[in-house]
């Protein structure tokens, strides 16, 4: 909702209305992004509206939120789109009405004032390459890898997996994806599925978990079956449970993006656009692979444990 804080009145964009719309509100990742946005909002005295649908598959829900922002008569929208193309229509409508739109996390295929985010295919590639290295270390570059996926049919996840396969194939052409399991974002199911594979498929030596739920499930399963030294497990996102997993060694590495930055920079660029200056068209802060050696390094502290906020406001 509207975070009432009007910061330093000196700011040239003070009092402007910017809505931030995330893919969902109910995970660490989006909470960090919102935290970032709030920081920027406070720094520049912008009137923020923070919204997000209940689930990352709820595209229509996001379309509604954008429409409602149009109704709210905001100056700009920072949008983490649930689809690379399905919001084109509504975004165009918004821009026609002079509303500036900055997209974050997931680029969309129509024009916008700017994009800040990680190319999920690239990030997937990083994960794939790291998977290959670790498999080599374990001595089976030709081993089988399990793909634990949270939802079928979500573009971002498809991209991550595409990238992962590419990255894996570069160094380990013989390595193969043994099967894909879908847990419908149910951590219990994820845990069960990975557990089943670990017990029933001794030849599986790698796990690729494509989001925080899959990652959490994988970490728990590896713990439950204490298979830490048997399998290489790489997951996306930096849920505390996953970070914990890295520390405990139940996750070999996690692919961490910088949602806090997305949120902050998104608002800043939106503000710029509102002022009439043109923000950089595309910023890719890239993704970092965090493993045991890095997890407690100071420079990643803010990344892995961003400033907390309660609910969707500060």
């Amino acid at each position, binding site marked *: *909702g*509207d975070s009432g804080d009007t910061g330093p009145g000196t700011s040239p964009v003070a009092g402007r209305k910017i809505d931030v719309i995330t893919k969902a*509100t109910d995970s660490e990742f989006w909470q960090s992004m919102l935290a970032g946005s709030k920081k920027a909002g406070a720094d520049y005295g912008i009137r923020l*509206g*923070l*919204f*997000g649908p*209940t*689930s990352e*598959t*709820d*595209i*229509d829900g996001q*379309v*509604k*939120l954008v*429409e*409602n*922002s*149009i*109704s*709210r*008569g905001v100056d700009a929208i920072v949008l983490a789109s649930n*689809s*690379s*193309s*399905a*919001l*084109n*229509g509504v975004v165009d409508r918004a821009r026609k009405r002079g509303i500036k739109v900055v997209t974050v996390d997931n680029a969309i*295929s129509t024009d916008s004032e700017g994009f800040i985010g990680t190319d999920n295919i690239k990030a997937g590639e990083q994960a794939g390459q790291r998977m290959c290295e670790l498999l080599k270390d374990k001595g089976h570059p030709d081993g089988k890898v399990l793909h634990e996926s949270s*939802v*079928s*049919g*979500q*573009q971002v996840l*498809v991209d991550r997996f595409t990238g992962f396969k590419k990255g894996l194939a570069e160094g380990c052409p013989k390595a193969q994806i043994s099967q894909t399991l879908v847990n419908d974002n149910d951590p219990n199911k994820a845990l069960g599925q990975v557990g089943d594979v670990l017990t029933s498929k001794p030849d599986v030596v790698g796990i690729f978990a494509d989001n925080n739920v899959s990652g959490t499930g994988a970490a728990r399963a590896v713990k439950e079956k204490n298979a830490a030294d048997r399998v290489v497990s790489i997951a996306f996102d930096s849920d505390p449970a996953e970070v914990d997993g890295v520390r405990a060694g139940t996750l070999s590495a996690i692919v961490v993006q910088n949602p806090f930055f997305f949120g902050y920079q998104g608002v800043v660029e939106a503000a710029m656009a509102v002022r009439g200056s043109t923000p950089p068209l595309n910023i890719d802060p890239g993704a970092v692979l965090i493993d045991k050696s890095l997890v407690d390094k100071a420079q990643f502290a803010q990344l892995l444990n961003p400033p907390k906020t309660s*609910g*969707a*406001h500060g």
Partner: protein
Amino acid sequence: MTDVTGAPPAGSRRKARPEPDESEILRLGQVFNRGLGGIPVLLILAFALSLSTDVFLTGTNLDNLGRQVSIYAILGIGELLVILTAGIDLSVGSVVGLSGIVAAKAVFDTTGGGSVVWAVVLALAVGALAGLINGVLVAIVRLPPFIVTLGMMGIARGATLLLTGGRTVQPLPDGFSSIAEGSLFGVADLTWLMLIVTVVVAFFLRRTVWGRYLYAVGSSAESARLTGVPVRAVQITAYTLSGLLAALAGVLLASRLGNGVPTAGTGYELQAIAACVIGGASLFGARGTALGALVGALVVGLLDNGGTLLGIDPFWLQILTGVLILAAVAAEHLRNLRGAGGNG
């Protein structure tokens, strides 16, 4: 309500003639006396919103509202047909996804503009087919509707994913996107469609023999059978129409999104059922109206829209929506209790 018998025969007949419509509403009011339920609640909500935020009553917002609600309303009205027969259709959400993808793929693969019509027809056919299968399994094989449609829910979603390999289908020709974007007399086509569907179904339910059969089957399938109602055929129609309307909703959604999204419609079944029940339908059948389902969908849509307009924290909004739905139905319900000796 007992004194009604007191009224002399001539009286009731005389009352009926002059304003047949009035009498009709009266009849409906009596037969499914929670049917027109939501309306007062709806008005109160709208009034409250227009007071609390000046952007609510703006043309753009009402236009948005119409676009947003239309898809759920159409879905809800389809669901209603099944609910009236004391059934339930959990597959509508998946059918939305499936039909959307079918239409999208059809226009995508054959990028001849004219094929849009074909694509839509094909999608509707697929939806109707899914419904037909549900209907047959319920009416002929006599399986519990919940299970049948739960199965279909999985099957349709799986099929959708297979068709797309889990990928979004796009870009789609403007010819297709324009279905949902166009508008007439400043009112979005989506809104028009929603109203048309409501009117047609309402007419079907009130005025046609087959419509009355739906209520009969819902009231007691056995008694209906004994009085010569073709129970099975009626059930099959209900599920088929539900599938058809779900498909329509799916096509509209795909057009609105300009994409064939394989996960589209996930979880819509619950919203559709909710719309019906908020609108006064009973899951035990034979109670409910098309108008009610529309109102139900509007109530939910209004809460959503209002919530964001007022910039309510999404977490709080979720709680609030829950509370308000309860309040709405409760208010409505108590009103009836006072009105009609509690057979609501």
